């Protein structure tokens, strides 16, 4: 394939540039709001900026990115037919398709089947959309910095029960899906709704268990703020840091390094919660078409965009908990010292950009998984959730707890995590012996698939 350098360089400058501009606006507006309205008014700015601008715009862009990226993976060109007036000769990488999609969905008839339960039918898309959106409220998208004399937190809300809010709201999402399936008065939709509700409820167990290790390690369920998980990950493991000239380096306390098993569990479970391939049985377009089979127009659009919002939110949550939030793996102190007290918002904006870039990368990872893996069968999903993820989660909680009790500085945990990662990498790189049928029948999850849960069965080995 021809490398289009202008496109590559363009996106490499435009995307971080836009993100930086957005975050900087957030900090400055937040500072102004605090100064002129009341202290804490910056949270209102954040609601608008983070939820409505960042999450929504990235989710919208993902609708296009999904098609373009999948086209890349499949030797296709992808959408390029929609053109803007006066720019008929340029496909603009398919960006006009975002506009045409929205126009199409908005102008289509919102069809309601005759025997559908009207109230629930109309309520379901909203119930599916709102919770995923609200999830992002507790995700800190940048460090707390001082702007115009006020401490500006880059988070819509920072309750001390952070992760509990996350679990609570995440479980609400199931209502939208199952109600959509039930109220449509359609057998396919009903099957989809039943599948969705059982899947989402089962995976909540693994979802919670995946994070317990992190909660023990940092002794908090809060995400934002100086005592929150996100900020704690900017610290190095005690004693394992040094200075290279002015730059501080060391082993950061990133959740991914401390809790690889927890990360994989949480990732797999959250992936199941988003109902995207390989966990898309509720949709299962080749079998039952999906719980939203009767929806059309923007009501369908809400389900659709909710899925993409979920992708963004999941990336944000994963980064805040497991990938150091907005922080770089090293050099954070050095970066902070570069800017004087009046220019801290610049420091914040740089890290905010880092956060959103991490989000985009994780979104890409999720789409790559979605386009690479076939769909599970309904019962296989339950097996994975209850018989594989749950025991691993329990083992992980006990082992992590023991290690933290033994060494509260988390170093033992980090070493165990390092070993887990090494085992996973080794297993992934080891070529599987030639097809042995009997073997594959017994092991439910071999090292064949690389996207996390396939390698799960290796985890106990990493723990001894």
């Amino acid at each position: 394939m021809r490398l289009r350098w202008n496109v590559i360089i363009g996106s490499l400058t435009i995307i971080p540039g836009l993100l930086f501009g957005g975050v900087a606006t957030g900090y400055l507006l937040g500072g102004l709001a605090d100064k002129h309205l009341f202290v804490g008014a910056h949270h209102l700015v954040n609601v608008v900026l983070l939820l409505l601008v960042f999450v929504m715009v990235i989710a919208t862009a993902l609708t296009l990115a999904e098609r373009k990226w999948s086209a890349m993976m499949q030797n296709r060109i992808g959408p390029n037919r929609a053109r803007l007036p006066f720019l008929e000769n340029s496909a603009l990488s398919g960006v006009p398709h975002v506009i045409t999609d929205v126009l199409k969905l908005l102008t289509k008839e919102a069809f309601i089947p005759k025997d559908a339960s009207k109230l629930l039918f109309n309520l379901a898309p909203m119930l599916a959309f709102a919770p995923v959106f609200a999830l992002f409220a507790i995700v800190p998208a940048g460090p707390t910095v001082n702007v115009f004399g006020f401490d500006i937190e880059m988070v819509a809300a920072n309750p001390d029960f952070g992760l509990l809010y996350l679990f609570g709201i995440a479980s609400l999402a199931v209502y939208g899906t199952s109600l959509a399936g039930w109220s449509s008065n359609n057998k396919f939709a009903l099957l989809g709704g039943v599948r969705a509700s059982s899947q989402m409820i089962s995976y909540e167990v693994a979802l919670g268990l995946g994070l317990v290790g992190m909660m023990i390690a940092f002794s908090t369920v809060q995400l934002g703020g100086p005592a929150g998980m996100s900020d704690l990950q900017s610290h190095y493991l005690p004693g394992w840091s040094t200075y290279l000239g002015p730059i501080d380096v060391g082993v950061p306390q990133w959740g991914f390094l401390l809790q690889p098993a927890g990360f994989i569990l949480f990732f797999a479970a959250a992936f199941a919660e988003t109902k995207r391939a390989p966990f898309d049985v509720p949709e299962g377009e080749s079998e039952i078409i999906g719980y939203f089979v009767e929806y059309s127009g923007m009501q369908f659009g809400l389900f659709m965009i909710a899925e993409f919002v979920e992708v963004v939110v999941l990336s944000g949550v994963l980064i805040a908990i497991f990938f150091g939030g907005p922080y770089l793996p090293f050099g954070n102190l050095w970066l902070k010292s570069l800017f004087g007290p009046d220019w801290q918002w610049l420091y914040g904006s740089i890290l905010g950009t880092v956060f959103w870039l991490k989000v985009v990368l994780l979104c890409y990872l999720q789409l790559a998984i979605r386009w690479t893996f076939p769909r599970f069968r309904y019962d296989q999903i339950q097996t994975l959730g209850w018989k594989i993820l749950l025991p691993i989660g329990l083992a992980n909680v006990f082992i992590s707890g023991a290690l933290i009790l033994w060494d509260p500085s988390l170093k033992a945990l980090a070493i165990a995590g390092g070993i887990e990662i090494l085992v996973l990498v080794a297993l992934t790189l080891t070529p599987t012996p030639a097809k042995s049928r009997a073997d594959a029948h017994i092991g439910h999850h071999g090292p064949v698939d690389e996207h996390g849960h396939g390698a799960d069965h290796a985890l106990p080995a990493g723990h001894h």
Partner: protein
Amino acid sequence: MSADDYDPSPSNEELEAHLQTRNMVVNLGPSHPAMHGTVRMRVELDGETIVKVDTEIGFLHRGFQKSCENVTWTQCLPYTDRLNYVSALGNNFGFLHAVEELIGLEIPERAKYIRVIGAELHRICDHLTATGALGLELGAFAAFLYGVEARELLWDRVTELTGARLTTSYGRIGGLNRDLPPTWPALVEKSLKKTEELAGEVEALLSRNRIFVDRCRGTGIITTQDALDFGFTGPCLRANGVKYDVRKAKPYWVYDRLDFEVPVGASGDNYDRYLCRVEEMKQSIKMIRQCFKEMPEGPVMVDDWRIALPPKQEVYSTIEGVMAHFKLVMEGVQVPAGEVYSCTEGANGELGWYLRSDGSGRPYKVHVRAPGFHILSGVNKMIEGRMLADLVPTFDTINMIGGEVEQ
């Protein structure tokens, strides 16, 4: 019973009784993503488990057999394109082979080789579609597109050979209507290389993919006895370990001279059917290369004006030429009275033809034994008692083609 005797607490029997449930009947198709080729399945579901499947075909029925009776033998050819529309050349040549057998006609060497090349090319196309669609419907869209990319390449070669991608109508009774284009073998070789690469890509994406294997292995199983009873042939039968391939059992054209293996499975499940197809593609590629190497020069059509159209030069300059041309076009090839059952190995199995001629230029009766029909009839055995989701890979690996099943 007076009001005092009434005991509101339920009896033990009542408490232990199962909940009264009814099975749900779902109509899959004729317009349903999994039901390619517009077949309808009336599926009775107990939760996610299939209790009963009722397959209803006929949505693509177009009266193939009757239509054939109203046209000359040669004019049947375009109808055969539409049987298995993914591998039309296989049907074309199969039909011609049957007619030639009825006449007792031996076609030229070169034509035999070209027929093998064409049939095998389209067999690859068919298997690419089947394996790709299996991936597609299990959610691995990329595998499908890789498969289809290779198929497009091969169809481009078929277009150069026949003038059409799907409705090839290539070959005539007594040989072929035209020889290979001059640079064609080199192009085919190039496409085959790319096909090998892409098919390898599909295999790499699917064959050892944990989820794919879990979905396919142990699902859609049919016992060997059932498979034989239902009349399974082709990859679906070979997946059970029965080594029956018309190309080996009753060699026609030049298959007896070619060096190829017949891959067989063991368990008769979806995974084995998939693997059989993957392996058969490799064997077909091998065969095509061999044919190009061994193919002699020479005519591609018998030199008999009762069967082959005379050269245009003769038509325009001699009375014999004009008359032969006129008689062949208006009355058709005069096939001697009699009947024949002849079969070739189509992509999905034994493609059989029962032909009956009354000595005129038109068939008295054309009956097709479409491999897919027999396999489709066994689909109940494969999925009753299994889960709804298993229907999808099962329906894909049996590769039901509406055109040939419903004729």
